[in-house]
């Protein structure tokens, strides 16, 4: 049985990551999923959050995605990210700022459309901050 699978992380604008991995974690809509090689075919939406890849040589890679789709085949996993960038490119300050802005927009909502948009923005910002915090913690340990 193969112990590795091919992982592709692509967004509309660029290919983010390609490589072989032992395991992949992703924030699916129904809850966080961990995918190992030979997984049964699965197609799911993913929420804003962090995609974690454990590569062949036991390195961990993190990617922030703001939603998208996840396709799992026995031979590999494809993450179709809405916007994915390398997690360490994110600045915590910018994410906090975005969160504040979204919260402010949420506080004085005028109509339902704005409210919905702000809620999405807030969810994204919270997930970003969360991802950065986790990464920082891990880096601190290692």
């Amino acid at each position, binding site marked *: 049985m193969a112990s590795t699978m091919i992982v592709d992380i692509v*967004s*509309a604008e660029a290919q983010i990551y390609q490589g072989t991995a032992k395991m992949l974690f992703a924030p699916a809509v129904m809850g966080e999923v961990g995918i190992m090689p030979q997984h049964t075919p699965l197609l799911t939406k993913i929420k804003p959050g962090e995609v974690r890849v454990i590569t062949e040589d036991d390195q961990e890679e993190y990617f922030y995605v703001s939603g998208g789709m996840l396709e799992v085949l026995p031979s590999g996993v494809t993450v*179709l990210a809405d916007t994915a960038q390398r997690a360490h490119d994110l600045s915590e300050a910018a994410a906090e700022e975005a969160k504040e802005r979204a919260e402010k927009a949420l506080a004085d909502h005028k109509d339902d459309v704005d409210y919905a948009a702000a809620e999405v923005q807030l969810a994204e910002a919270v997930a970003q901050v969360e991802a950065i915090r986790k990464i920082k913690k891990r880096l601190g340990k290692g």
Partner: protein
Amino acid sequence: MAVGKEIRNQIKSVKNTQKITRAMEMVAASKMRKAQDRMTASRPYAEKIRNVISHLAHAHPEYQHTYMQARDVKRVGYIIVSSDRGLCGGLNSNLFRSVVRELAQWSKKGIGIDLCTIGTKSTGYFSRLGSKVVANATQLGDAPQIEDLIGSVKVMLDLFESGDIDCLYVVYNKFVNTMTQVPTVDQLVPIEKSDDKELEHHWDYIYEPEAKDVLTELLTRYIESLVYQASVENVACEQAARMVAMKSASDNAGGMIDDLQLAYNKARQAAITQELSEIVSGAAAV
């Protein structure tokens, strides 16, 4: 020397123009390379989605999404991708000419048209023409972002879903190479099914949440990515066309300078000869 003052000024101004066109040529060349990179970078996404969609279509042949069903055409939609700025040769006018030709064919059959314009040039052109522009996006810059396009694409897809339009096309310039850009019309919806026999298999995905939701999201993203690709490709075309246009402008300026220089030299020579003959004949008179 007073001779040829006007000519000298003219030479100077042509030289200045040449400097500008040469600079624009070089800027366009480097921007074109970047745009080409973006073009290749966006390809894997569309390919992956296309794979997933054909997997899906084969796993569920009985399930037909609205975006995949062909209907009788009563009204059509066009997304027209143009550049924001001019000075790029005949790029936009070639594109518009081919669009207008298509539109004329539709209206001959009595079929109405809704337009979505991307880029300042097409917005200006088609609103002057009096076409029905239902959505637009401008000022995308050299690196279009997919967020800037989602809104206008959604407008068109909603029209399709509500049955207001029965066919949606995207029009853009296809980048062949630096010298050649071809106005291209691609059909977006209904999506043409691929007849890939290799993909036949007997398994199905587990869907979270439901197959229908997942498929809708996928198809929407697929169409968005196609429009994104069209606009990135159009940027590459714009820069290539501008580079070529500016190169020929610089060459023309060079030719003009040569001509003017010749005229100036002749005038100077004539003035000297005249002055000499005046002196000689003056001396002879004494």
